[in-house]
């Protein structure tokens, strides 16, 4: 959930790169094949990215699925701001955009896509948000990085990389579409406290 802090945890000089562009690409390719395998050809799959960085990841996975399977896979975004459980702990946040593909999600297999899985609270909020949009046949979760420290009984179905971390560290995913480069950074959080 590093995207919750646009300014607080800029990667400092002490952060190190744990995944580079090529490795991110390989991880996404592997997730693509796992999705095809688990959903028998990704016929009924809808990919929904959680803003900010889940959205370009969902688009990349959709492009990968189309390349392998030869049929387009609908993708979109799911903003969870209004469903967060920590709204009353901070000033009101700016909303993201929810964009559901035209065919909707009823009866589909929805794969939620996010950059980092940490406490699991974002995913819980996303499940609530989905509930108001329709009734998918199944919901799965794909994340680029699983950094552990879950606070809710939530587990990912597809993981790019398991990254054991301490809670004093931060994980930051950079994507070309948003940040101009692809990388996953790991560093020690500054005085602002760890992302939550």
């Amino acid at each position: 959930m590093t995207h919750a802090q646009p300014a607080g945890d800029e990667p400092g000089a002490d952060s190190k790169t744990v995944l580079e562009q090529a490795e991110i690409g390989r991880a996404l390719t592997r997730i693509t094949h796992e999705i095809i395998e688990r959903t028998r050809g990704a016929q009924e799959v809808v990919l929904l990215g959680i803003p900010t960085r889940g959205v370009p990841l969902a688009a990349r996975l959709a492009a990968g699925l189309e390349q392998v399977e030869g049929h387009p896979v609908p993708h979109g975004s799911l903003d969870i701001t209004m469903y967060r459980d920590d709204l009353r702990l901070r000033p009101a946040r700016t909303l993201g955009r929810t964009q559901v593909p035209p065919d909707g999600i009823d009866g589909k297999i929805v794969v939620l896509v996010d950059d980092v899985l940490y406490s699991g609270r974002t995913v819980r909020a996303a499940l609530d948000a989905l509930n108001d949009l329709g009734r998918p046949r199944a919901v799965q979760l794909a994340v680029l990085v699983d950094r552990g420290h879950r606070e809710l009984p939530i587990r990912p179905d597809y993981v790019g990389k398991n990254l054991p971390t301490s809670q004093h560290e931060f994980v930051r995913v950079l994507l070309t579409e948003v940040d101009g480069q692809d990388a996953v950074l790991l560093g020690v959080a500054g005085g602002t406290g760890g992302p939550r």
Partner: protein
Amino acid sequence: MNRHLISAADLSRDDALLVLDTADELARISDRPIKKLPTLRGRTVVNLFFEDSTRTRISFEAAAKRLSADVINFSAKGSSVAKGESLKDTALTLEAMGADAVVIRHNASGAPHRLADWVRGSVINAGDGAHEHPTQALLDAFTIRRRFGRSSNGPGPGGQAGRGGTLDGLRVTIVGDILHSRVARSNVILLHTLGAEVLLVAPPTLLPVAVDTWPCSIDYDLDAALPKSDVVMMLRIQLERMNAAFFPSVREYSRRYGLDSARMAQLPERAIVMHPGPMNRGVEIAAGVADSPRSTVVEQVANGVSVRMAVLYLLLGGVEADQ
């Protein structure tokens, strides 16, 4: 943003754009099968209406309910106010009931400002006397922005909410009873903040005393103003407040300052006609104009819910920055 929304002057340009961008996202909720968000669950919004109102009260009620807040409606008729209870005692009662936000309409200018000292929750001005009506100005600005294609259409980078534009360079003409209009004052302030050029057109008797200090220009000739207007906002002639001879007759007013089809034809091609409602058809606006595709009257009502949801969310959705 401030804790309260009492005047359109409380909003900086960035604040106003944040409200409009948030409203753009929230407007999309109304296309969904489930038009409800859990965001303000467990919070209480009190609609405190000392003056008659249909659309504003219903609009605030719908907005609060779509955000899952509990709504208590309080109208002066049939309450203890009719027995002589003061505003302060009413406020203390609401405070004891734990209101997180109070939406107040009052016939005295400044009542929301006083109320803000007495309650801990946010105070939202839903119209005070002839002073201000900031959420109406916000929904008008929102409607203008949408009609002129300056809203956030596509998502921004990474699916974040897109950023909509300002109203820079748009010429807005507000016509009619400026003297009694809280809508006009709030609109002049907010539209100026957002970069529009505002022109007031009214008979000299219906202009307030200090209007020359407002950030707008003034004219008395509607026919001269129309060809150079992108937006014409017609104000209601408030017959209930006409306690002096402001103009010789309603018919003469209508001739000089009413918008009929012939006058509408003088407008530039893309221009729109707005009215905050309720309309006096045949007085300040002809029925043919009110029902024309240029008229945004119905849109304004629909947009009102989205804008008020945005205001409630931004005032109540988080903690205050200073806590």
